[in-house]
């Protein structure tokens, strides 16, 4: 039996109410995994061609075409290392943990397919050190796979990386897995050129590998049977805020926000805005519910889905306090390596806090806006760019509320319990 083209859900098909989908059930659902083997031709890789036709783009946040990335690694002339990025440092995201913990065989399939195509001899699953249960599931699932017992199979390990927003940034991840600090490194060289131990390294998100598994099994035409022309297939979205059932939902490309909300059990209270794309994302007005979640169309409008995050911000929250809290957290999570990131994010966080407190608030709006422009593309990684996008978008969307804080200081809602989660700070930030 094999999944029909219109089958929905895909990634979460057959997900058991608890525990993980065992190998036998997984194979009964998807059929056996075809492994192409390393292509003789340096440029023609059947799986890469199929991924290109399918139009798969990375699900880790940046949305880079997956075929292009595989191709870049494949043509480096060495056996590449594969890193499955399951660090999931974004506090608003839960999809990688869900996918790896409940549907590990689908992720493993994608990794095996990519390893076979690229001739990889080493695979590393990187997980946040705090999700030990997920690591155990993954180890169990890996032990069930006959493909990994064969001669010539890649060496596979499950590695814990320190928690934190930056751990999943690809050069920080490569550095941490190589025994260094979980801090971004100077590029070039990019990981695809010189990654772990200097070996060309493919770093892709866990969900991306699950999508690769679907394309390897069912092909590009099947993949394109759902979704839109420019955002084919389905994706996982982590929904939180004012909905009845916060959590991970699978949707086809082009699904409207309204449909997503109803898949999450509907709104629990009136909302004042919608955050799309998490702490590197952009804000929408509550009237935008007919907006289609088509990653391509959103990009063209300057919006972003990031790693698939939607937050429905209730009207009972103070946007200034929420944004201020997140800005401070992002400033603390910075690796504090690049001047503009260190000083810019600190200035932004300070000014936002003053809007909710007693400091000098005159001209704060304009200053924050200017700093948000000043930090973009000036760090070794795009953490400051994401933070600036998030803050600047809130300033634009909620201008009257920010102006009101600049004039009158803290509002009645400033002290309300925060909606946007901020993981506990380290007692002493590591600088």
């Amino acid at each position, binding site marked *: 039996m094999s999944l029909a083209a219109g089958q929905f859900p895909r990634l979460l098909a057959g997900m058991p109410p608890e525990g993980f989908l065992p190998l036998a059930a997984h194979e009964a659902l998807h059929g056996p995994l075809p492994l192409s083997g390393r292509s003789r031709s340096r440029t*023609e890789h059947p799986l890469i061609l199929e991924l290109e036709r399918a139009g798969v783009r990375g699900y880790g946040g940046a949305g880079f075409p997956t075929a292009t990335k595989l191709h870049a690694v494949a043509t480096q002339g060495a056996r590449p290392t594969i890193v499955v990025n399951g660090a999931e440092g974004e506090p608003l995201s839960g999809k990688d943990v869900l996918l790896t913990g409940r549907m590990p065989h689908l992720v493993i399939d994608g990794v095996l397919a990519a390893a076979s195509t690229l001739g990889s001899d080493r695979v590393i699953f990187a997980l946040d050190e705090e999700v030990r249960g997920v690591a155990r599931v993954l180890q169990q699932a890996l032990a069930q796979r006959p493909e990994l017992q064969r001669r010539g199979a890649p060496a596979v390990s499950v590695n814990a990386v320190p928690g934190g927003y930056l751990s999943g940034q690809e050069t920080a991840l490569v550095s941490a897995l190589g025994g260094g600090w979980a801090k971004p490194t100077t590029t070039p060289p*990019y990981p695809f050129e010189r990654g772990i131990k200097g070996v060309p390294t493919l770093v892709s998100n866990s969900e991306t590998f699950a999508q690769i598994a679907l394309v390897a099994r069912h092909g590009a035409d099947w993949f394109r049977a759902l979704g839109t022309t420019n955002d084919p297939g389905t994706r996982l979205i982590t929904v939180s805020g004012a909905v009845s059932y916060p959590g991970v939902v699978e949707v086809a490309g082009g699904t409207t926000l309204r449909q997503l909300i109803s898949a999450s059990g509907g709104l629990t209270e009136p909302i004042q805005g919608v955050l799309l794309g998490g702490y590197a994302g952009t804000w929408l007005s509550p009237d935008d519910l007919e907006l289609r979640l088509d990653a391509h169309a959103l990009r063209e409008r300057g919006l972003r889905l990031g790693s698939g995050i939607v937050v429905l911000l209730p009207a009972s929250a103070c946007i200034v306090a929420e944004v201020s809290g997140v800005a401070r957290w992002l400033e603390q999570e910075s690796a504090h390596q690049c001047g503009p990131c260190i*000083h810019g994010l600190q200035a932004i966080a300070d000014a936002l806090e003053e809007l909710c407190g007693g400091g000098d608030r005159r001209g704060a709006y304009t200053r924050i806006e200017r700093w948000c422009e000043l930090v973009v593309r000036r760090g070794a990684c795009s953490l400051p760019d994401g933070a600036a996008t998030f803050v600047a978008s809130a300033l634009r969307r909620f201008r009257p509320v920010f102006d009101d804080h600049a004039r009158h200081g803290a509002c009645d809602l400033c002290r309300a319990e925060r909606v946007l989660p901020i993981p506990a700070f380290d007692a002493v930030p590591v600088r």
Partner: protein
Amino acid sequence: MSEKLHLDPIACTGHGLCAELLPELIWLDEWGYPVIEDGELTPELLGHARRAVDACPTLALRLQRERAARRPRPAGGGRPAGRTPSY
């Protein structure tokens, strides 16, 4: 062979020497870190740019061939014929 100034923000410690030597293209932000304008490195400026590169005490500033620092682009080989990628 067009060259471009490339800054390594991790290595840069904000000495600001570069901005003194190439004010046409580099200015300092309010924290003393250089902002490099996108403008063209004309032959007259190239000499100043080389001097700025040499003067940087942390080797944070480099002159690079325009394409060297780019991310991978879809390569010509291995693309399906007759179909424009939709992204």
